[in-house]
């Protein structure tokens, strides 16, 4: 392995990116911080209120409920989409035109604008004109505008429909990078399909699965457009995510102080989470890091020379 050269002139190459992101991220965030510390009544009439808005946000029952609801949503999203994504990825054809076709078909939900996803599901689940809604009503009462439970389930199913393909594609990429020799070695050992998954595939998928969990957690934690179009956050506030609530406070009520404090706390929570994930994700790349590869070594030893092509 060749090592990277230390060269601080590289900062010149990075400068445009730093400038652009500073313009689009830091300046607005400073404005947010500014809002959160002052009560702005008019152009010349502003009062420094310190952390009052933060206390208000931290004790507001609506925001607390939305936070718990959103955590619960993310947990359900991960529990359903990660196993389902792995399942679908393992079924996907690996070669020939079928593999290309499968990739395109699987990826389609990902390229549909988010509000069109909402529109599609709104049409699909309506009990008068939607295929899904009409079919569901044959078996049980189903109405997303009246029943909070139905609305919640619809949001979960819609999100699963929208984002499981992302998990499937990531896992598919991970599976394709596993050398055939590993499978041959497992076949010689006459390992069961479960054992192959547990000891050959899962260790190799660790990295892509971490990326998948990170992306799915983040994106479900800032879910806005799809539930907004389908349920509008209702009935009541049963499907109001943190982003929907924040947008209502910021743009709807124009309550900039509360919105500013809310934004900063929201942002901070996400940053802490990404930091933990980023640390876990890059832990293998540090000098002196040890990799746990015990089960693989066992297969290696039996497969003999076949393992050399890795």
């Amino acid at each position, binding site marked *: 392995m060749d090592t990277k050269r*230390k060269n601080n002139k590289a900062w010149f190459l990075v400068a445009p990116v730093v400038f652009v992101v500073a313009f689009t991220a830091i300046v607005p965030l400073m*404005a947010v911080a500014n809002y959160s510390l002052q009560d702005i009544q008019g152009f010349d009439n502003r009062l420094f209120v310190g952390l009052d808005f933060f206390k208000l946000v931290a004790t507001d029952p609506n925001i607390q409920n939305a936070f718990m609801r959103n955590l619960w949503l993310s947990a359900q999203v991960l529990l359903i989409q990660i196993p389902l994504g792995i399942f679908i990825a393992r079924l996907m054809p690996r070669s020939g035109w079928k593999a290309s076709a*499968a990739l395109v078909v699987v990826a389609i939900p990902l390229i*549909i604008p988010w509000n069109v996803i909402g529109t599609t599901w709104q049409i699909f689940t309506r009990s008068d004109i939607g295929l899904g809604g009409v079919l569901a009503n044959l078996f049980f009462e189903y109405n997303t505008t009246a029943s909070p439970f139905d609305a919640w389930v619809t949001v979960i199913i819609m999100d699963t429909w929208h984002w499981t393909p992302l998990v499937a594609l990531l896992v598919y990429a991970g599976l394709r990078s596993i050398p055939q020799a590993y499978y041959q070695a497992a076949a010689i050992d006459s390992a069961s399909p479960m054992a192959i998954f547990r000891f050959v595939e899962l260790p190799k998928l660790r990295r892509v699965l971490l990326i998948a969990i990170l992306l799915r957690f983040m994106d479900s934690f*800032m879910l806005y457009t799809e539930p907004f179009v389908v349920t509008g956050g209702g009935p009541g506030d049963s499907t109001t995510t943190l982003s929907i609530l924040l947008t209502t406070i910021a743009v709807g009520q124009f309550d900039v102080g509360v919105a500013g404090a809310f934004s900063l706390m929201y942002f901070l929570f996400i*940053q802490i989470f990404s930091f933990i994930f980023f640390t876990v994700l890059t832990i293998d790349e540090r000098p002196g890091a040890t990799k746990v590869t015990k089960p693989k070594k066992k297969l290696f030893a039996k497969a003999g020379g076949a393992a050399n092509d890795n």
Partner: protein
Amino acid sequence: MTTKTELTAAGKKRSSFFDFRSWLFWLIMAVWALPVVWLVSMSFRDNADILSEFAVIPTSISLNGYMEFFSDRSWIGSYMNSVTYTLLNTVMSLVVALPAAYAFSRYTFSGDKHLFFWLLTNRMAPAAVFLLPFFQFYQSLDLFDTPFGVALAHMLFNVPLAVWILEGFMSGVPKQLDEIAEIDGYKFGRFFLTIFIPMIRSGIGVTAFFLFMFSWVELLIARTITATSAKPIAAQMTRTISASGIDWSLLSAAGVMTIIPGVIVIWFVRNYIAKGFALGRV
């Protein structure tokens, strides 16, 4: 990789017509396709037909939705707005991300790890946080309601993504290439533009696809910093829903129209999609 002797995940040869796993996969995909198929079927019926009878297979076909879409300036205009700022964003993001990704893949420099993490956190930032300041900031800079303004705002999450994906692809090119070029007397700029960039063109293609896609699907920011003259197609759709009943036929037709560009682009990069989704780092 030879296809004749290839083994599947289960370790057995699969060549028979009745391949259970393959059938199961396409069955799942058929169920997956239902909502979109339903949208397409709605787009080819007119409103009276949609509301009067529930039919799994449409009994009469009508192009009213599409006719309305293509004859109304505000629909076509907003569609073109979306295409414009999406393309602008793709080009602008690539231009700034290419040198940065090169720096991250080739050199260590003071604060590089922190900078990389900081860039990534912007990809993870909730768009809702930026609404209010963007709204005021872009108005005060006269960027409000312009395609350029939206393209700039979308760089918030697209530039970090581009740097991340490109860095992965660039790290796959051996560093010896750079050293040989330097020995041969290439100046950095010439080497970068005439040798290095052509070498990673597939990576650039994939990155462009992701930039296009994430800018195309975003609604919240684009809607907030536009009013009329740069209104995205997505906002046009949500604003029409509330007006005197819902024009299901037109709405479905517009929905189908927004899916088409993505399908075309996805076909070109199908073999790299999965790699790009793992951000070039599988």
